[in-house]
């Protein structure tokens, strides 16, 4: 019974323990780790992206994936009309009666004809190219003017022939006039020379490009008039506005302009300081297209590098002059030849270093280095030209012992209203560097008085950690950089007060001190991961 009594007491006490009426607990502070960005891009991705967004990208992948910087420039060149111009042809002659001739006219029977003849010779002096000997000019345009003026009282008739000026069917130009045509004292004849040809004569080295005009004058005695000394007749012809479809001859030796000018060619601006930078290799190709029927020689390419107005480098080469054949038959079959400069025959690699600010370039070819064979004369068609394209190929293999970048940029950060549920956050930055160089970064944030208020880290961050390379300089294992940036609301306020960011970047290539070059290839890339730890705080 006693046990039963105890049992009843126990049962009666059942449930006497009651929970607290109110509960409280500490803040809920879970730490949430979330990946934000995980991306990788190699140089091929970058090139593809740039190619999609830009018309051209100056970098291409060569065989083996090595990237090559390409620079192409079309030279101004020379057009046919610029190099060769046909001068106007002008000549005049006067025929006056002297006493003998006047007496002869007066004493002759009425109606008798006295013939007088003369020759006009004009030299087509070609200044461009100087000293050119012209054998043939097929005219595209031009006009011939022939004017005869007479002061003679007797009847005068005559004719003029230019045997060097042929019409499209090959007949010499000729004109005849009657006495009636001089009733007014003069007459004028014009001829459109389109399709005509001029065949100048080059009888000797002194008389060149001659155009002759022969004229005959027939004086008919007028019994009503007594010829006086001094009466006369003048004739003049001119061929002006001459343009050609084709010119043949011996154009001599003269320069044909390719390019001349100054180009800004600065790889790095003044925010960079470089020490011990060197390119592994560079090549220059000068491709000349010659649509003149003129052989030429490239022997004048001057490349001079300037820095601060001072010559710092000059391209020198041991390459022989380039022989440039002429076009075959006409300008539609130009010749194309290429002059190549590389490390074997020039100092082009050292020339294209980072210290260049500007480059002065001048280039010509010289015509007929070997003279002209009469059997194979020079020719220039109206659409002929000589031009060139400069192509620089610089494989992205280089070494840089020290490259510093220093700049101050504007900085603005707005993190919005404080989120009470977020105590702080820790941004983790991971960079997998597959490039054969290292980069250290310092970021100091400045206020509007340029006073430092915060910094990314106490010491420079090796954001591009040096990777592991094999003997061939290929990246075997990327360098991994991990850094946590802690943010809390107090720091956020500081960051929001910053106005500027001072960036200091230092970089060097692997083995640069040992004069080893590194090469950029399209499969080299950078992996970027951003993650965040959110230190949350939620009040119960």
């Amino acid at each position, binding site marked *: 019974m006693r*046990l*039963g009594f105890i*049992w009843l007491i*126990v*049962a009666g*006490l*059942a*449930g*006497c*323990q009651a*929970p*607290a*009426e*109110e*509960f*409280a*607990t*500490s803040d*809920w502070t*879970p*730490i*949430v*780790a*979330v*990946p*934000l*960005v*995980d*991306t*990788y*891009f190699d140089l091929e*991705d970058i090139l593809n*992206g740039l190619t*999609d*967004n830009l018309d051209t990208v100056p970098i291409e992948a060569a065989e083996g994936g090595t990237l090559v910087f390409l620079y192409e420039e079309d030279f101004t060149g020379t057009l046919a009309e610029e190099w060769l111009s046909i001068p106007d042809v002008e000549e005049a002659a006067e025929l006056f009666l002297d006493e003998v001739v006047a007496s002869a006219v007066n004493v002759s029977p009425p109606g008798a004809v006295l013939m007088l003849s003369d020759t006009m010779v004009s030299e087509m002096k070609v200044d461009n190219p100087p000293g050119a000997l012209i054998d043939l000019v097929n005219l595209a345009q031009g006009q011939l003017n022939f004017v005869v003026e007479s002061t003679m009282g007797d009847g005068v008739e005559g004719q003029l022939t230019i045997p060097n000026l042929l019409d499209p069917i090959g007949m010499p130009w000729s004109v005849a006039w009657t006495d009636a045509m001089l009733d007014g004292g003069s007459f004028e004849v014009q001829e459109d020379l389109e399709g005509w040809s001029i065949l100048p004569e080059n009888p000797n080295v002194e008389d060149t490009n001659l155009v002759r005009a022969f004229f005959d004058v027939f004086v008919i005695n007028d019994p009503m008039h007594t010829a006086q000394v001094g009466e006369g007749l003048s004739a003049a012809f001119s061929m002006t506005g001459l343009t050609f479809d084709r010119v043949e001859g011996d154009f001599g030796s003269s320069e044909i302009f390719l390019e001349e000018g100054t180009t800004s060619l600065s790889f790095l601006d003044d925010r960079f300081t470089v020490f011990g930078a060197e390119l592994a290799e560079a090549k220059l190709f000068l491709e000349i297209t010659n649509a003149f029927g003129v052989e030429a020689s490239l022997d004048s390419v001057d490349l001079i590098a300037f820095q601060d107005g001072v010559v710092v480098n000059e391209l020198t080469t041991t390459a022989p002059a380039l022989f440039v054949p002429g076009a075959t038959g006409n300008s539609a079959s130009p010749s194309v030849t290429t002059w190549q400069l590389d490390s074997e025959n020039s100092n082009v690699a050292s020339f294209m270093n980072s210290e260049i600010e500007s480059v002065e370039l001048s280039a010509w070819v010289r015509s007929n280095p070997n003279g002209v064979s009469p059997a194979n004369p020079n020719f220039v068609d109206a659409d002929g030209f000589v031009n060139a394209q400069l192509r620089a190929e610089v494989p992205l293999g280089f070494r840089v012992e020290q490259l510093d970048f220093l700049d101050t940029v504007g900085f603005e950060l707005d993190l919005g209203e404080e989120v009470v549920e977020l105590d702080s956050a820790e941004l*983790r930055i*991971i960079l997998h560097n597959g490039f054969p160089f290292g980069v250290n970064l310092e970021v100091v944030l400045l206020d509007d008085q340029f006073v430092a208020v915060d910094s990314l880290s106490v010491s420079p961050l090796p954001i591009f950690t040096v990777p592991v390379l094999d003997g061939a300089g290929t990246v075997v294992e990327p360098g991994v950089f*991990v850094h946590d940036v802690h943010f809390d609301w107090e720091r956020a306020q500081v960051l929001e007060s910053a106005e500027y960011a001072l960036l200091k970047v230092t970089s060097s290539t692997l083995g640069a001190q040992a004069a080893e070059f590194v090469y950029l290839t399209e499969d080299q890339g950078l992996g*970027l*991961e*951003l*993650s*965040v*730890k*959110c230190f*949350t705080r939620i009040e119960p």
Partner: protein
Amino acid sequence: MELVPEWGQAGWSNPAMLHPSGSHILLGGLSGFQVELDHTGPVYSDFIDAEGWVDPMLMLEGMDPRESIASRAEVPLISLGFRDERRFEFRLRSRLVTEQQFDYDRDLFDIAWRGNGHPDNIGRPISLSDMGFNAQAYLDHGVSVGAMAKEDKLWLGWGIHLLNGVGAFQTDGFEAIWTTDSLDYSWELQGGATFNAAGLDLDSLLGGGEIEVPGKGGLPPTLGAGVAFDYGLLWRMLPWFDLEASVEGRGGMRWLESLSRKEVGSDVFVLQGLDLVQEWGDRDSLPQDSIPEAFEDWLQGMQDSLAQTFALEGIPGVAGAFDTRVRETWRLGFRFRPVKALEISVLAYRQFRFGQTEEGGVFGLTYRLRGNVTTHIQGQFHADRWLWGAGLSLRGGPLRFSASARHIPGLIWPLDSGHWQGQAGVSFDIGYRQKKPKRKKNDLGTGKGMWH
């Protein structure tokens, strides 16, 4: 308490054990009704003090990697037992058993409270693979016999249970592992699950439908069938010392009717950050203003991909049968009687339930007064904590009333307890007339029952 003969279930826990009465009848309803609620994790007072201050870290520190909340109810419909003195006993019983168990991982609370970025969590697989919910209800029609194999030395017992399943829900497989990379904080989610049900329409449940009670208030249909066996041994090594061993409930059911099955295919989902280069490629350009938009797209894409990776799908065609086990308990112990009325018992056990295994031990003290009053107290080491139980069995004439609780402090101080168990029953005992002169000393079959 199931091994104390006076409480009526001893012969079902160890069929070699005989009831103290000659015959007994337990009628439905209150005749041996048992309810058990068990939580293996920290109890209220482990992490909440009297002032109501909740310390989640104390809760986490008090948890094992896997914890469970389980309940079980047994309602005997009828139970009969007939005994031929101490030589033989035949038993027949029908009962309704319902049991549920929800297993959960400590990591579930850990990651919720401390987050995946906590130094203790980041970089390690956070496994939720022990999670699962299992439940079943079945009718158990059992026949059991116990027989003396060697005169007053050895008793052997055997029982068989014919099981009629009423309803079940089974987590057939569940795998969920969340690893946050300690370097880049990327997530790897590995998971998969399979759920089976009988008598429950999972499609309806997933669609927000209500759980329909099998049978709709009437006699529930039989959706599964099975059999389970009991084995028992009682070896009286000395007149005052017994060695006992038993296996209870070794068997299970195959569910065949009204089945449905859902599956989340085993897969791995990796959450990494936004691939800016890809976004750039997809968009042709990625101006600064479109980065938030790109992040939104990426986030939506991740959600879609996650949902697609771990989509809960039905199994095409007719769902196949599935098996469940019933609770199985192995026991090994001894008891000795320093004096006639006093019995001291020590028992170790291993219990298998819904794929989980649990070990424990019990020591008990039983005092019997003139065969009519039996009291019992015990200490049980269960789920890393001690339970202190007691029971009282009173017999008056043919009626026996028995009640017990496995953890009395849990009734008085429920906030300190993770285990609540109660048992009460009224039986109609037809006993042999006590022929005291003929009784042998320390006769097992006349009230010298054993408890645990």
